[in-house]
């Protein structure tokens, strides 16, 4: 059984009477340990699909299962709990909590999980050292560069030991050097720690490194390709 199983997923938005079919019956499997990219132009439905897999939204039809569990759970609180324990997120705009330091941002998810302070603090420091930011642990997001913020976001995403990390255009706001550093980091986490990554991007720098690329266009999967050997 795949870690992620999406079957016949459709998503329809209606805004002021205008209907938009963002996804039109998508099937997708993601296995544990994958480094997979959802690629496609803007409006192809890749972020929508990522949101549905991330339990941030619910499909209009079809099912999305995470490790066999249907994500159509009844309450917002239960969905939040599932995101907390099973999913990690890296966003395009970094989205660190501005009033918390780098360490506190990484600790935040563990705090929500109920990890005691004496455990989560050294773990946060260790994760920041792993992403090369041990010296910036006490800096707030606005005191760091975009690349540094995104690396903190990666540390935060894996701090809760999720089953999969979903990264939505993680390099879109980074320069080439920072993007390369970030991708090196993500690749090493995937390779060394077995962290599963699913990207949504049209950035060729990520697509080139992906082991599998799923192309979407107009809400449909149009091509599946394994671009690199595992």
């Amino acid at each position, binding site marked *: 059984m795949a870690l992620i199983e999406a079957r016949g997923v459709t998503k329809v938005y209606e805004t002021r009477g205008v209907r938009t079919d963002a996804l039109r019956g998508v099937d997708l499997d993601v296995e544990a340990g994958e480094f997979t990219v959802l690629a496609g132009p803007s409006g192809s439905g890749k972020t929508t699909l990522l*949101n549905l897999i991330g339990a*941030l*939204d619910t499909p209009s039809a079809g099912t999305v299962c995470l490790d066999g569990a249907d994500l159509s759970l009844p309450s917002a*609180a239960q969905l939040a709990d599932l*995101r907390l324990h099973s999913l990690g*997120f890296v966003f*395009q705009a970094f989205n660190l909590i501005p009033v918390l330091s780098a360490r506190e941002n990484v600790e935040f998810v563990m*705090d*929500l999980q109920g990890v005691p302070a004496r455990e989560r603090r050294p773990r946060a420091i260790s994760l920041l050292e792993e992403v090369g930011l041990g010296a910036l642990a006490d800096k707030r997001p606005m005191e760091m560069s975009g690349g540094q913020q995104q690396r903190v976001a990666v540390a*935060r995403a894996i701090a809760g030991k999720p089953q999969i990390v979903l990264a939505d255009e993680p390099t879109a706001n980074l320069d080439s050097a920072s993007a390369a550093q970030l991708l090196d980091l993500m690749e090493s986490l995937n390779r060394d720690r077995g962290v599963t990554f699913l990207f949504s991007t049209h950035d060729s720098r990520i697509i080139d490194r992906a082991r599998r690329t799923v192309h979407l266009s107009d809400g449909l999967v149009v091509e599946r390709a394994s671009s690199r050997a595992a």
Partner: protein
Amino acid sequence: MRNGFLQRAGATLRAFVEPSTWRLAWRNVGRNGRRSAIVLCAAAVGVCGGLLTMAVSYGTALAMVETAIATELGHLQIHAQGFNDDPGLAHRLPQMSELGGDLAHDPAILAWAPRLRTEGLAYSSRASAGTRVVGVDPERESELSLLERSVIAGEYFGPKKRRAMLGADLAARLRVETGDKIVLSIQDKDGEMVSELFRVAGIFRTPLPELDQATIFVRLHELQPILGVVGEISETAIRADPKSDLPALANRVRAASGVGTEVHTWDQLRPILVFLVAFFEAQAGAMYGAVFIAMLFGIANVMLMAVVERIPEFGILGALGMPPARIGAMIVAESLMLSLLGLAVGIGLTFAVIALLGDGIDVSRFTMARAYGVGFRIVPALRFSDWTVPSIAAVATAIVASLAPVLRARRIRPAEALRHV
């Protein structure tokens, strides 16, 4: 549905005790320092204004009661039965050298004084005026009331016989000064008119205008034979220890005074005072209520703005797995911090202002203050409830003010919120 509400409320309460909820809330309060400072100042000024209003109102009420008790009423009065319905010479008590029973040694009684009351006309060589004539024991009266301390001209009775003390306004109406002669024309106990000559020993000004306008004090033992009531009085006034249990003391005095007498406390003798005290308190309470309603809308507005501004952030918190209940608890905590900080600063300001006012506000120039019998100074005073009520109100205000923002935040769906980023 009810279970769902209870579950959400329980989850919010659990989230509320998480230290990280408060840490995040505290940082959020500090992130927009200017806006938080404005709300804090508004709350502080509101609380201070409200508390000072309460303090002045309570101080005014206290001053009215204190003035009435200290100048004329005493805390308790003993009369012959029926005196309050017909306060004339028909209802008299035997004069005692000491209070009866165990009252002579009752620690709750600080002073007592006998009085004989009647009404008549006072004549000077230049004018005449209707007047209340009160016979007093100067020494005992001095221990009981403000009369001796209120002398502004002449002396307190002095050593010579047939001396009278006149209120300042009455002296002005009669156009007399100390040493001048006046004639008192009064009815004795049988209704016969008698006229007696007195000299003005002293002129007094008390905080009670009606006393100054129409009262003449003479020695009790000189008035009794004029009225034909030797050994008899109209009332015994008692000043009690303010910390004592007045109703209990009244009961002891009643028991000791025996049949044919009635004992009244100051509030029974002057129910208007009770009404005025309640009126002042209600007035201050209404103003305080208005302050808190204004504070409620101010904080609610700020919190709502803070929520709308932070929609993407709430989306991120939700995406990271922060439960909606905890997001709600964080908003309530932010609102509580603003209110409680405002309350603390407001209370501090109030302390400072009251300390600056020192021995009170001089109201001697205000006719209204005299008319209400407030006296010459109002000392702002606060009771325990004056501190606790606003504290509870501040918490309630914060919670109510955060309800709309919390509901707004709970409706935010992470996917929609992230589109605002």
